[in-house]
């Protein structure tokens, strides 16, 4: 099966799996969590909303599972995610739509910076492997990638937000969140710097390690030796011959890395009360707002899937060997 088709299949299957997990979980868990949730919101929601919830979570219903599943898919495909219990009467769709751009901007940009930065440092470390720089970088990168994101976020929030007062602390972001708009690009950037730094610094460590190891392995390859034997400049050998090949596994390993980064980013958002999906998810969890939780999970999963698919496409562009094999 050609590479691209296989990736599309994985994309579709994973999307299906994410949707199905949402359907199955509330029906599978012991102790009937959905019922507990409904009981909590009895009286706070309109009877119509409650009735809709019972259908959505399969409580007190006489429909068969299959019928429920079909109805569920109908809802998902038409973008009907139900009402948020926390932000009632706002719909889940509205809440997610409001939060999504924040997360996309924050996580997208800082992940990109972390990737470029980490990969660059990894290349430099590998090129001088065995040197003092390499020796120091390794444990530092390990320590950075072994730090809990949220803990590091708390520390820099405390130091740069409270003690030094250089950047706004969570409160300012809450304001932006409640108002739903922003005074100007300046404040957005201002608010984003600390969370973005958290994500960038903790995520870059992982990329340093990945790239460094790939690159050290590639430096022993015959084609790198031959590049030297051709009398190419060191820089050309390093970048165009070694790094250009060593970066390929970074794209195939992207799936795991991005999932991990997104997880950390969610926690970071919570610490900074950043008005994105992570913070919304946190509130949903605190309030047992299952419809909101499900929609957020779905959106994050889809976003990660798309990011992965883009990484796959980049991989295809970068590696001629996975493209269709043929003779010129």
């Amino acid at each position: 099966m050609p590479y691209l088709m296989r990736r599309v299949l994985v994309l579709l299957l994973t999307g299906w799996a994410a949707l199905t997990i949402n359907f199955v979980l509330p029906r599978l868990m012991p102790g009937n969590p959905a019922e507990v949730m409904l009981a909590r919101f009895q009286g706070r929601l309109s009877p119509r909303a409650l009735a809709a919830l019972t259908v959505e979570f399969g409580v007190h219903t006489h429909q068969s599972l299959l019928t429920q599943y079909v109805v569920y898919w109908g809802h998902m495909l038409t973008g009907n995610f139900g009402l948020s219990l926390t932000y009632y009467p706002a719909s889940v769709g509205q809440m997610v739509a409001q939060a999504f751009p924040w997360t996309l901007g924050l996580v997208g940009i800082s992940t990109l910076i972390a990737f470029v930065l980490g990969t660059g440092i990894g290349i430099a470390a590998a090129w001088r492997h065995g040197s003092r720089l390499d020796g120091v970088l390794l444990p530092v990168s390990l320590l950075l990638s072994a730090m809990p994101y949220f803990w590091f976020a708390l520390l820099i929030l405390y130091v740069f937000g409270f003690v030094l007062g250089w950047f706004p602390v969570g409160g300012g972001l809450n304001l932006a969140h409640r108002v739903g708009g922003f005074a100007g690009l300046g404040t957005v950037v201002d608010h984003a710097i600390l969370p973005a730094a958290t994500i960038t610094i903790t995520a870059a460590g992982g990329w340093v390690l990945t790239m460094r190891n790939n690159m050290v392995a590639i430096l022993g390859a015959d084609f790198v030796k031959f590049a030297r034997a051709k009398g190419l400049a060191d820089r050309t050998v390093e970048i165009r011959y070694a790094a250009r090949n060593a970066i390929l596994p970074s794209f195939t390993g992207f799936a795991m890395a991005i999932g991990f980064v997104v997880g950390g980013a969610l926690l970071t958002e919570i610490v900074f009360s950043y008005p994105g999906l992570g913070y919304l998810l946190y509130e949903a969890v605190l309030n047992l707002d299952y419809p909101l939780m499900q929609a957020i999970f779905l959106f994050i999963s889809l976003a990660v899937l798309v990011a992965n698919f883009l990484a796959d496409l980049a991989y295809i562009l970068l590696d001629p060997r996975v493209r269709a094999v043929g003779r010129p």
Partner: protein
Amino acid sequence: MTLRAFLANRRAMAGAAILVVFALLATLAPFLAPYSPTNINFPPMLGPSSAHLLGTTANGQDVLSQLIWGSRDTLLVGLLTATIISGIQLAVGIFGGYVGGWVDEVLSMLTNIFLVMPGLPLMIIVAAYVTVKGTVPIIFVITITGWAWGARVLRSQTLTLRSQAFVEAAQLSGESRWRIVLTHIVPNMAGILVANFFGAALYAVLSEAGLEFLGLGNVNTVTWGTMLYWAENDEALLMGLWQWMVLPGLCIALLGTAFGLLNFAVDEVVNPRLRRT
């Protein structure tokens, strides 16, 4: 020979040393900790003093005792989860890689799906649905999201080994499949297995901390994660109780680094292409 290379590896030894220190802390907690970690009868919010070397929490608990006892469950969850994850990786990776055919297709697809599914969000919603909070659900959710990568690595390793001459020779000499797997394939993957184990332990410790920080574990147990949960809830940093917030996180980072170092070092020892020249 491999063992000697491992012992000579500075990174491996540094990782092992940190791990040993934490393991000693965990086993000797009753003797090392000055107080019970759950004793709430001390004056709250004390700074460091001779009676409370690291001060007390907002709830009047001794921070040092909590830190020492906290190593127990943190380490236990990390190692136990990593063991379960390694078992699943081994089973899925070898089974798929060795049996091949449609079994392999299905397992690979499943692996790919779990690989791409973002771990923490899935953990969060599963944990939110679990009505009984505690260690077992935590281990469960970390396991289901953490096995895929290693399974993929082990599968491709199995495929490589399967085509090697000594395995083919064993097949021709009529050895049974499971005997070949046990005597020829698993031993040759020992290094990767060990490296993966430490990788999984790192993942488990960090995931556990994240989940507990969100209050999705049992917040009444004492682990480094729940310590951070309470420290954040009671605004430890704003209260000036920095040691309550900084130290548990630092311990997690150090333990994680130890697992990371071991993972890295084992990889370096078994994979000659990474060796320092």
